[in-house]
């Protein structure tokens, strides 16, 4: 059955005079992997941050699995538990071990027993290939390893969907693949994903929809392979010409 996970209706967002999102409409159904590309400043990261309420919006509605997060009566903390997010700069908690990073929110937010959280955490670390790093601190890890921990940390909340905000942009080229592989596994496992990235290979391989944003609007969207091979809009052509 087709289940709508994320719905954006005419979302407008501006920072003072600067308009960042100019009426975004978007519907994401369960299992979709949406890859969002666009020049810097096009609003793609901001859109992602609006989806889980990290940024307030000025106009429009954002509905997560039927709950309107723009409604002041909605408990945003509850909604965020269902949305995992991974950041460009990892943002691991430097004062906690790798395993503690992964188990902190399940214990404090979901009220899980320590032993249970630890078991889930260890399984997730196995899944991202870092079982042997559980007791290390984040700054002992490479960027790619830190980012994989960040993915495990987000997954530990057992979210229904995941947001990826340029998660490979801060990585050395040789470390990008290990993170992308984890993301591909997730995508193939049926996770609903919104991915802001410049990795066109990822879009081609596992993306179910490609979306090109510019100046706060969605300029063009479609099947990733078709769109990369044959973009319709002039702006899309120009951008793809630069990144490919």
């Amino acid at each position: 059955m087709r289940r709508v996970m994320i719905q954006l209706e005419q979302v407008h967002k501006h920072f003072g005079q600067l308009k960042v999102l100019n009426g975004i409409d978007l519907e994401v159904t369960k299992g979709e992997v949406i890859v969002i590309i666009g020049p810097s400043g096009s609003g793609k990261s901001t859109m992602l941050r609006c989806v889980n309420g990290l940024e307030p919006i000025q106009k429009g509605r954002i509905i997560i699995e039927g709950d309107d997060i723009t409604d002041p009566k909605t408990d945003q903390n509850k909604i965020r538990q269902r949305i995992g997010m991974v950041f460009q700069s990892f943002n691991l908690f430097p004062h906690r071990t790798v395993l503690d990073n992964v188990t902190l929110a399940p214990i404090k937010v979901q009220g899980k027993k320590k032993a249970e959280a630890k078991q889930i955490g260890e399984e997730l670390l196995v899944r991202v290939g870092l079982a042997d790093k559980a007791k290390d601190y984040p700054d002992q890890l490479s960027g790619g390893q830190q980012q994989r921990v960040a993915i495990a940390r987000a997954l530990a909340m057992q979210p229904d969907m995941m947001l990826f905000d340029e998660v490979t942009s801060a990585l050395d080229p040789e470390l990008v693949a290990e993170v992308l592989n984890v993301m591909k596994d997730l995508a193939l496992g049926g996770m609903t994903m919104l991915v802001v990235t410049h990795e066109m290979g990822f879009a081609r391989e596992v993306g179910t929809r490609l979306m090109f944003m510019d100046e706060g609007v969605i300029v063009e969207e479609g099947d990733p392979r078709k769109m990369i091979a044959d973009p319709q809009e002039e702006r899309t052509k120009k951008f793809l010409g630069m990144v490919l």
Partner: protein
Amino acid sequence: MGQFGRYYFNWDILRDTLPELLKAVVVVVELLVFGLFFAFILGLLISLMRISRVRIIRWLAAIYVDFFRGLPLLLLLTFIYYGLALVGLQTGLRFLILPPIPAAVVALSLCYAAYSAEIFRAGIESIHRGQMEAARSLGMTYGQAMRFVILPQAIKIVIPPLTNELIAMIKDTALASVITTPEILFRAREIMGVRANPTPLTAAAIIYLVFTIPLIRVAARLEKKKGSPGTPAGM
């Protein structure tokens, strides 16, 4: 040494004075323990108010900090001990009459809360914004994110400046002598009067330095090695 030794390093007087002053150390420690405790609690609260999203709360905190940073501690001590007691006696509001030690603790706490609030605020603000965002994105409330993610990191950063606060407070306890708190300087002056010799002041200086110099060294060391805030203790 001659004359100088007789007046300032009079061995007999020094020997008699030191045990007396060591008793006064207990009072100073009392002032420090309670003073720091209340100053840090109140300071942390004010620092959190200072970064609140509600403008009125931010203002209240800013007013507090400016007020107590701008006021001489000596005036504050005098007001809380004599100023309040005078009104207490005339109106019968007996709770306004504080004994010297509680009065000194109140004055020190109020004043040092303002300084600590600024230190805590700087510490909290030095933690990268991404930490708060990561915590919130995991479903933590603002309070949980502060408690489990931001403050544990900020505390590590503020330890060196708080050590400097401690040193300053040790020295400022001497001000409490003006409200007859039986602390080190107060007792030293009493003995000086009885023996008609300033050697007790030398004894007091020795005691202060025994406490402050090691702390000054520690603070300098902590400041030097505060490299990456992320490095866990013991690494």
